[in-house]
């Protein structure tokens, strides 16, 4: 290695070091500490009873019905919101991609939900559906006394609606970037061969966009799985809408049981890693397959 490239490498690492060290400290250390805490019996109300208990906190969490019903709630919210977002996001992306006019207006307006504080969006939708203040019950076809946020299905629907409203724009923008990579000539050629718009969408656009779709799904799935703000504001986990993040919060902050709470935290972390690994594997095989076709 030449002197020049060696000094270039040294400079590169020096420039990256502050960012890398900061990221390691702010994530690596607390997660390591969470693992350690999760192996202790440690309740801040009884700090003197702190002792090493091995994996028994994990056993407690994994044998509790609360944990599993919360995982189930989180999965329902994640799957429902991400799949609706994919369809809606694709529709908005197509409108933006093919728009003859008003592209700027559409782009500007979809960025509004993106920029809004999640807590604000959650309050807005909550008041919209609250029978004491909401305009929704005033709409035709909807019962005047409907109170979705007092029962489970209604609450889940409002939570999903809020999440979808807030994050579809991000999905749409990622998909729009993917759409731009699909060459127009392919569409023209298929048109000449007599393919209709639906056929062209499913046979040309979707396969070519598969990596972009998977990346967008990965980002949104991981994000949706951590859902906290919306649930906290709209139901605080009541009516059987508690998610894993809300459970972690309740145990850690409200019940100050750091031992069991940290076990919940670590389990959520493991879930997120599992989801990421699954997606990255899927992404790896699709890009590999596409490269194979190109050769």
């Amino acid at each position: 290695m030449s002197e020049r490239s060696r000094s270039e490498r040294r400079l590169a690492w020096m420039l990256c070091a502050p960012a890398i060290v900061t990221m390691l400290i702010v994530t690596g250390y607390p997660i390591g500490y969470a693992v350690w805490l999760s192996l202790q019996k440690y309740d801040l109300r009884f700090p003197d009873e702190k002792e090493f208990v091995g994996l028994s906190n994990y056993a407690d969490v994994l044998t509790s019905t609360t944990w599993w019903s919360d995982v189930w709630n989180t999965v329902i919210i994640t799957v429902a919101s991400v799949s609706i977002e994919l369809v809606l996001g694709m529709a908005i992306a197509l409108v933006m991609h093919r728009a003859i006019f008003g592209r700027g207006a559409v782009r500007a307006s979809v960025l509004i939900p993106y920029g809004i504080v999640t807590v604000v969006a959650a309050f807005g939708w909550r008041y919209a559906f609250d029978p004491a203040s909401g305009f929704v019950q005033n709409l035709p076809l909807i019962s005047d006394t409907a109170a979705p946020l007092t029962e489970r299905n209604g609450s889940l629907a409002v939570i999903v609606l809020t999440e979808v409203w807030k994050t579809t724009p991000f999905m749409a923008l990622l998909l729009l970037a993917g759409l731009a990579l699909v060459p127009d000539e392919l569409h023209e050629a298929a048109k000449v061969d007599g393919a209709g718009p639906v056929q062209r969408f499913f046979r040309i656009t979707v396969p070519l966009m598969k990596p972009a779709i998977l990346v967008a799904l990965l980002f949104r799935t991981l994000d949706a799985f951590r859902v906290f703000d919306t649930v906290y504001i709209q139901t605080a986990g009541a009516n059987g809408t508690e998610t894993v993040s809300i459970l972690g919060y309740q145990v850690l902050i409200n019940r100050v049981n750091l031992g069991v709470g940290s076990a919940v935290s670590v389990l959520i972390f493991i879930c997120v890693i599992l989801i990421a690994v699954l997606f990255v594997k899927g992404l790896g095989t699709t890009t590999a397959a596409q490269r194979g076709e190109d050769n």
Partner: protein
Amino acid sequence: MTRTPREIALWSIGILVVLLYALIPVLWIASLSLKPSDQLGDRRFIPQEISFENYETIFNTETFTRALINSVGIAGLATLISILLAAMAAYALARLDFAGKAIILSGALAVAMFPPISIVGSLFNIWREVGLYDTWPGLIIPYMTFTLPLAIYTLSAFFREIPWELEQAAQVDGATPFQAFRKVIVPLAAPGVFTAAILVFIFAWNDFIFANTLTSTDEARTVPAALAFFTGGSQFEQPIGAISAASIVVTIPIIVMVLIFQRRIVAGLTAGAVKG
């Protein structure tokens, strides 16, 4: 290409639907915030009477004004620090040749996907021991978990697009290295840095989980957390008008920024994800 009136009509409807989709909840909160308190329960989308009493209330409530100062300060400092650190890293990633680029980028991606709830318990315990609980740095530090990866991604994508040869060209033309940097590279890099800063600021401004768990008083509580703790006349009554007015106050600056810089924000949002 010419369009038939039918196509134009269809497009107009499509655009209108998207506009309504984005605007209805915002207009709804704005409407609530402008209703006089005795009409908050009228369930009308459009207020019958306009009143600014909710805005007067919140600006006379110290919980809110303190929270606004905290939000601006904490999100601003978190943005400044992460942009500074990320700009150095992104310069190296975009311009220098060294092994380990892929590891740094995937490491940053992994950090970006980190669930905040996994570390709030640890931070809650450590912060109380070292005196960072309920302080500005106590929030700025954990914000690095999401601001740094985002900044690194968007900045390195932007920096890759800069024609760096211009720097050498300027030096050949007699500019000193510092002049070349200041007069050629800084103007080229500034828009990207600015966009990344806006994106990072929006994320920090939006945080609720850290602000909710790592603060307990007006000392460092930011607006999203303060909104959740607003109380009305009684414990069971939510101050709908005040919360709506406060919501509009924190939403307007972001909407204005987003609308002015929409083109660059879209580029910044997608550059990192697609090319990275």
